[in-house]
């Protein structure tokens, strides 16, 4: 598009948090109806850049930024997200911003509710008008339909699986009448591949309707697939700005990390023959991820994958066994019965888990990294406490906590200013690594990991998967990995179970044909391979 003023242009954007430079002289523009893919390592500054664009208060509170943002060729300075919304910018944040106690419809139409006037309006003015629920529901349905997904307009957000929350957020943004630019910060991180496909298709549709889109994702193949242009951020600088045509995933990865990345392929360990974890007729009442009747066995030293579409119950399995949601059935580990509905008892049985909900359950956002990593081990196993006054009582061992945190910061390459930094200030991907560190610190014999690589960059993903493999191989740790990314499961697991409608639809070898997985996920089990394992 030569000679046309781009819809959005960012010029010389710089930003630091108390001297820690996060963005440096970033310049790029977005044309009308164009999709720009924004990529970069964890902590490269993507989210920060989008927060600047959207006028988020954190930016002003932390000292503002340098550079100019222009919309339609005119410089703009948004004082708050409301100004940005008025100017036609819609944003789907990396972390959810929905109201849990409201339904899908209410969240989508929030603040732009359709009103119905009544008698009182004639007397007291429009403030007396009431919500036109039917019309709102219709609008919500239209927005949902544009996305091409199935969502219940009347479901409460608090009861939704994460995938549905994500679609609700996007639907909310496209329900706006004047939206010109849509910013999506890792919208697909919480989606399964097939759901992501649906989303990418709807993005293309939106773009063809003239809406410009900035799309952030760590799944580089999505970027290559959907973006017209790709902007690569590395350590706060825009190092590449290229058309997508002719660019490969490998190129992007190379630009992101500044060196060539080789996917390291390690041999899978051989697991023992004995059954380590056995689950019989497990049911879990987790809203949006109900588990109805699940039975499976995991061998000692195995990496067992659980996949399936969002909302089918795969996340409920780990949460139920770990006692975080009410459930029933029989779970034995190493021959011993595991108490259900008792988080403390479970942690005491050499088990640990990494929650899929990192900000909700996984982190103490207001506390230091040291606390975040050591806390669970301290509470569950009495570690990181030091006796004082001859063992009269025990106090926190801050030194040991610091050492532990430093060890994981190094091992997992966590980007932070120090172990005393608060978890809230880390970028999304680095927060994920903290959650992993917390679980590793328990030295579990059985580890449940839910969506371990959600929101982390290619390099970090390799580190995380490699770490899981190492713990599995070196320490014989049995791992149950729950993920929406089938490819990831296939790259690391010995066997993969697919969950559908709260039941195990089948268990396959990672080498099985992708079509077979698809078949199981779609809920049309092929009886013959249903009980393959």
């Amino acid at each position, binding site marked *: 598009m030569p000679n046309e003023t781009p819809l959005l242009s960012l010029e010389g954007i710089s930003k630091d948090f108390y001297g820690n430079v996060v963005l440096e002289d970033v310049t790029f523009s977005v044309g009308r109806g164009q999709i720009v893919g924004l990529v970069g390592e964890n902590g490269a500054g993507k989210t920060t850049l989008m927060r600047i664009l959207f006028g988020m208060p954190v930016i002003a509170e932390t000292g503002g930024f340098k550079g100019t943002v222009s919309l339609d060729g005119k410089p703009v300075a948004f004082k708050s997200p409301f100004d940005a919304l008025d100017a036609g910018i819609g944003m789907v944040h990396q972390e959810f911003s929905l109201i849990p106690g409201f339904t899908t419809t209410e969240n989508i139409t929030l603040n732009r509710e359709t009103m119905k006037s009544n008698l009182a309006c004639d007397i007291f003015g429009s403030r007396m008008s009431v919500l036109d629920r039917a019309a709102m529901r219709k609008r919500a349905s239209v927005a949902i339909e544009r996305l091409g997904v199935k969502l219940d307009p009347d479901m409460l957000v608090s009861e939704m699986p994460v995938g549905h929350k994500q679609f609700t957020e996007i639907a909310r943004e496209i329900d706006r009448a004047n939206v010109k630019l849509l910013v999506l910060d890792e919208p697909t991180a919480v989606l399964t591949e097939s759901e992501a496909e649906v989303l990418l298709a709807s993005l293309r549709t939106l773009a063809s309707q003239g809406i410009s889109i900035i799309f952030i994702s760590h799944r580089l193949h999505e970027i290559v697939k959907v973006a017209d242009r790709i902007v690569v951020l590395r350590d706060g600088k825009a190092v590449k700005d290229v058309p997508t045509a002719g660019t490969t995933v490998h190129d992007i990865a190379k630009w992101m990390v500044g060196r060539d990345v080789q996917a390291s392929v390690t041999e899978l360990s051989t697991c023992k023959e004995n059954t380590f974890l056995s689950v019989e007729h497990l049911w879990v009442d987790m809203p949006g991820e109900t588990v109805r009747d699940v039975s499976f066995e995991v061998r000692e030293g195995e990496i067992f994958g659980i996949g399936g579409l969002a909302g089918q119950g795969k996340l409920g399995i780990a949460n139920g066994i770990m006692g975080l949601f009410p459930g029933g059935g029989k779970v034995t580990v190493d021959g011993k019965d595991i108490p259900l509905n008792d988080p403390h008892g479970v942690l005491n049985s050499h088990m640990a888990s990494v929650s899929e909900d990192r900000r909700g359950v996984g982190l103490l956002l207001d506390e230091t990294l040291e606390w975040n990593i050591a806390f669970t081990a301290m509470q*569950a196993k009495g570690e990181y406490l030091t006796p004082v006054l001859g063992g009269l009582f025990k106090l926190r061992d801050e030194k040991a906590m610091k050492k532990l945190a430093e060890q994981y910061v190094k091992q997992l390459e966590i980007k932070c200013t120090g172990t005393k930094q608060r978890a809230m200030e880390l970028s999304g991907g680095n927060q994920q690594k903290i959650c992993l560190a917390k679980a590793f610190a328990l030295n579990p014999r059985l580890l449940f990991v839910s969506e371990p690589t959600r929101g982390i960059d290619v390099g970090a993903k390799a580190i995380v998967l490699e770490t899981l493999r190492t713990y599995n191989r070196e320490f014989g740790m049995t791992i149950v990995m729950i993920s929406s990314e089938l490819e990831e499961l296939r790259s690391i697991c010995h066997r993969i179970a697919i969950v559908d409608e709260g039941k195990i639809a089948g268990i396959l070898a990672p080498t099985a044909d992708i079509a077979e997985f698809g078949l199981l996920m779609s809920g049309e089990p092929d009886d013959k391979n249903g009980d393959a394992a």
Partner: protein
Amino acid sequence: MNRIKAFITDFGWPRIIIALFLLGLFISAPIVGVKLGPSFTDVFNRFGQNAIMVLALVPMVQAGCGLNFGLPLGILAGLLGSTLAMQLGFVGAPGFIVAILITIPFGLLFGLGYGKLLNKVKGEEMTIAMYVGFSAVMLFSILWLVLPYTKADLVMGYAGEGLRRSISLEKYWAKLLNDFLAVRIGDFVFPTGLMLFVGLCVLFIFVFMRTRTGTALTAVGSNPDYARASGVSVERMRTVSTVVSTVLGGVGILVYQQSFGFVQVYDAPLYMAFPAVSALLIGGASVTKASMVNVVIGTFLFQGMLTMTPSVINSVLKTDMSEVIRIIVSNGMIIYALTRKTKVTK
């Protein structure tokens, strides 16, 4: 310049303004003819007198139960402690110790019930706490009348039954801590015993917050879901925090009484929570985070101001403005803090 700015944002404007105001009062005191020695003595006495009740708020703030407007509950336990110890005829140091020993089980009991109640109203703790405080004080106003106290200097003279509004500790343990090892320098008296006792209590909470339980409690306040997933019982920790807070509130009022010289019953406990809360907030605490430093700085600034304003301002203006200033500052501070951080849980 940047460092000054960072310091100011760190320390907070309200604290700086109040500190400067207090400094101004100290500087102008001799000029308007107020003696510094007795003023300092007063400031220290009132600091010690109130600090423990401010300290009592900390565990609940840390556990995410908000500011303990239900502090009167703990104070009632303390009132039972001192009046019963007096009724039983204990005097002097043994009397004070017996009063503490009686206060503790009552505090535990009240705290347990209060904690159970607060667990049922998550997110609304502060409002409910306020009601709990009010109702308990009213209930006890009746009890003070009907409980079979008989000692002559406790009960109302003419009726021979029902507690007096304020009971003198003169013959019991008035100034017990204040006078213990007190150091006299000119016309300034340093209340060593009082300061030691306060120091002991601060140390107790400081250590408590560093134990496994204290750490769990803080995590519960920070993110209950995280704490639960780490095997911590959220309800239990919240109850622990209310129990500690209530017991400490009871001990706090005992210390207050011995310094003040009187035991005040009936509606007096109602007026104890607000000053404690504002002192903590002035000290820089928020609704969700409080530290020992907040307690010490806050109590010192708040009580310092309360002591100095009457003497200085009155001798300047020749009218009594102190009460007005006190009310504006203490309530203003509470409003300021509540509007800034209203979220209690998570």
